[in-house]
C-alpha cells in the first residue's frame, strides 16, 4: 500500500489506539482540527474526545500531565505542535520524565511518547524550523527517534508507544507529504535502537538520519553515476541510544565516513557518532571523518540565507568527493 510519511504516522496512531485502550492522544488542536499538520486527522471521529484531547497552549503542562498519566499506567502520546516549542516543556522532559524511574529506584515507569514536528526548509524562521534532538540525546532515561521514511515512521511510532520508557519522536515536517512509499498492510514494528543500511556501498559511508537521509541517498546516486563511487548510506533512525554496532560496522567496512544531519554541527549528534568511530574504529579509517550540518547560527527567515545555512544534496556530494579524493 502506497502511503505518505504523514499518513504512516496517522496509521500508527489509529492502529495503536485500536490495539490498546490505554493509548490516548493529547495536544494543541490535535482533536477538532486534526493537528496543525493533519497528523491526527480522523482520530477524534473514531475514538472520541476522551481519547483525543485538545489542550490549551501550555507545553510544560501537556508534557507534565502526560507524565502523570503515564506513571498511572496510561500510554499518552502528546504532541508539541512544532518541535521548536518543546523548549517550553524542557523541565518536564529532562527533569521529570527522564529521571522518573531512576529517582524512585525503579518503582514505576513512564511510558510517554512526545511527538514533535521538526525541521527546516519551510521558511519557518527561528522558531518553526529547529531540530532540537541534540538537547535530549545526552539525557539518560529518554529515548529519541527520528524516522526518515514512511515505513520507519509507522514502525517506530508503534514501538515508541509500546515502549515502557519516555520516547521523543521527531518527525520531519518537510517529509510529511513529499515522500511516499509502499509499506506492508497491518501491524509491523521497527525496533528502537537499531539503525538500518538504506543503501549498500564499498567506497565510503554516509551516516545520517531524518530529513538528510533523502539528500544522502540522492548524493549517493549522483556520485555513483558521475564518479563511479559506491556509497553506503546508514540511517540511524534512533538517536538515543545510538546503534554503535551498525555505526562501527559501516565505518570499518568502507574506511571513510561522512556524517550528515540538518541540526547544527556544534554539539550535534554527528560529534557523538564521530567520537564512537574515532574511539573504536580508528585503525580502519582511510581519511578524516567529515561532517555536514547546519551552520552554527539561528534559522534565518530570508530564503537565500536559509538555503545557504542548511545541508542539502550538493553539500553532501561535495563532502563525499572531498573525502573520496583524500
Amino acid at each position, binding site marked *: 500500500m502506497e502511503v505518505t510519511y504523514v499518513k504512516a504516522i496517522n496509521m500508527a496512531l489509529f492502529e495503536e489506539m485500536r490495539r490498546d485502550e490505554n493509548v490516548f492522544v493529547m495536544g494543541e488542536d490535535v482533536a477538532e482540527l486534526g493537528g496543525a499538520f493533519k497528523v491526527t486527522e480522523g482520530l477524534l471521529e473514531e475514538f472520541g474526545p476522551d481519547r483525543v484531547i*485538545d489542550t490549551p497552549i501550555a507545553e510544560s503542562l501537556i508534557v507534565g500531565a502526560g507524565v502523570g498519566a503515564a506513571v498511572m499506567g496510561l500510554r499518552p502520546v502528546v504532541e508539541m505542535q512544532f518541535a521548536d516549542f518543546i523548549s517550553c516543556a524542557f523541565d518536564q522532559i529532562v527533569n521529570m520524565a527522564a529521571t522518573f524511574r531512576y529517582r524512585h529506584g525503579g518503582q514505576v515507569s513512564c511510558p510517554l511518547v512526545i511527538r514533535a514536528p521538526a525541521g527546516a526548509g519551510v521558511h519557518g524562521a*527561528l522558531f518553526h524550523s529547529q531540530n532540537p534532538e541534540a538537547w535530549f540525546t545526552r539525557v539518560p532515561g529518554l529515548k529519541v527517534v527520528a524516522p526518515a521514511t514512511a515505513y520507519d515512521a509507522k514502525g517506530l511510532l508503534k514501538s515508541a508507544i509500546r515502549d515502557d520508557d519516555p520516547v521523543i519522536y521527531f518527525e520531519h515536517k518537510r517529509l510529511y507529504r513529499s515522500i511516499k512509499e509502499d509499506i506492508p498492510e497491518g501491524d509491523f514494528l521497527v525496533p528502537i535502537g537499531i539503525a538500518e543500511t538504506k543503501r549498500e556501498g564499498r567506497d565510503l559511508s554516509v551516516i545520517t538520519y531524518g530529513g538528510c537521509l533523502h539528500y544522502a541517498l540522492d548524493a549517493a546516486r549522483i556520485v555513483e553515476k558521475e564518479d563511479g563511487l559506491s556509497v553506503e548510506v546508514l540511517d540511524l533512525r534512533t538517536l538515543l541510544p545510538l546503534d554503535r554496532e551498525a555505526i562501527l560496522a559501516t565505518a570499518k567496512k568502507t574506511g571513510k565516513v561522512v556524517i550528515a544531519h540538518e541540526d547544527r554541527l556544534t554539539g550535534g549528534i554527528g560529534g557523538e557518532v564521530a567520537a564512537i568511530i574515532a574511539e573504536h574504529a580508528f585503525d580502519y579509517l582511510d581519511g578524516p571523518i567529515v561532517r555536514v550540518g547546519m551552520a552554527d547560527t539561528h534559522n534565518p527567515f530570508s530564503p537565500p*540565507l536559509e538555503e545557504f545555512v542548511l545541508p542539502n544534496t550538493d553539500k553532501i556530494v561535495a563532502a563525499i568527493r572531498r573525502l573520496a579524493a583524500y
Partner: protein
Amino acid sequence: MALEREKHLAERSLLTLTETELQDMYRMMVLIRRFEDKVAEMYMRGKITGFCHLYAGEEAVAVGAIRALYDKDYVVSTYREHGHCLAKGASPKRVMAELFGKATGVSRGRGGSMHLFDAELRFMGGYAIVGGGLPLAAGLGLSIQYKEEPEIVCCFFGDGAIPQGAFHETLNLASLWKLPVVFICENNFYGMGTLTQRAICQQELYRFAQPYNIPGVRVDGMDVLEVYAATVEAAAHAREGHGPYLIEAVTYRFRGHSMSDPAEYRSKREERIWQERDPIKRFRRRLIERRISAATLDQIDREVDAEIEEAVRFADESPDPDVSEVTKYVYVDA
C-alpha cells in the same frame, strides 16, 4: 459587552481628541488593513513565504492602545504583530521588506513576519512563542523602574497565551513589584482552531486581573475610541507608579489563523456578524458624524494605497541579505 463606563469614556475621547488626531487614527487603521490585504496578495504570488498571521479586523486594538501611549513608551507583541509595529510608527516599506526577507527589512531579513523589531521606535518585538513576550515585558518594566524612567510598557498577547504559565508568572510579579506594564489581551475567541471556551476556565478574561490584585477591564476591541480611552487610564495608572493593568479587548480576526488556515472551524454566519462590526467602517461613520468629510477620508484612503504600493516596490527591489553575513548578529560583532 463593554461596561457603560468604557462606552462613556470613548464618547468623551471623541470630543477631546483633535481632528488631526482622529484622522491619524483613521489613517493608521486603514494603513494596517490595506497593508495586510497586500501581504495576503503577495503571499499568494509567492513573494512572501513561511508562516504569516494577519491582523485584519483587529486594527482598533493596536491603533487605539498605541495612540494612548507616548512615543517613548515600549511595545511588546506577538507573532501577529504587523499592526502593532506599524502603529508604533514603523515604516511600511521596511516592514514589507522584512516580510519579503530582504536586507532592508526592520530585522534585516533575519526574523521575518513573526519577528519584527524596531529598537529606535521602542517596538520590542513580535515573538513566535505564545506567551513568550510577557516575561520580557516584565523585564522592560523592571528596567524602567530601576532607572527611574517615566516610560511604561504596553504588552499585547492573545487569549491563547492565558493558559501558559508565563502569563501567570508575569502578572504575579508585575503586581508584586508594581511594574509599569499595561497588559492588553486581544481576545479574538480563538487560539488557532480552539475556542476560548475549550481552553480557558474563565470566559471574562479581564477577571484574571483580580487574583493578581490589579485593575482589569474589558473593552470593545472593535471600537478604537474605547480601546484608546481604556489605555489612557491604564497607562496613567502604570506611569504613576500604581503598577500593572489588564485590558481585555474583545475583537475578531477577519482571516484564518495564518495564510494556510481556511478557518473551517468558524461559521460563515459568525464571520458575517463580526464583519458588520468592522472597526474601520464603524470609526469612519463616527468621524463623518463628527463632521469630518467623506472626501477627506477618501483622500486618506488614496494616500494609504499609494504608500502601500510604494512599500511593495521597495521590498521587491531591495536586495536579499548577503550570504557571507549568515552568522552575523549571532554575537556582538568585534
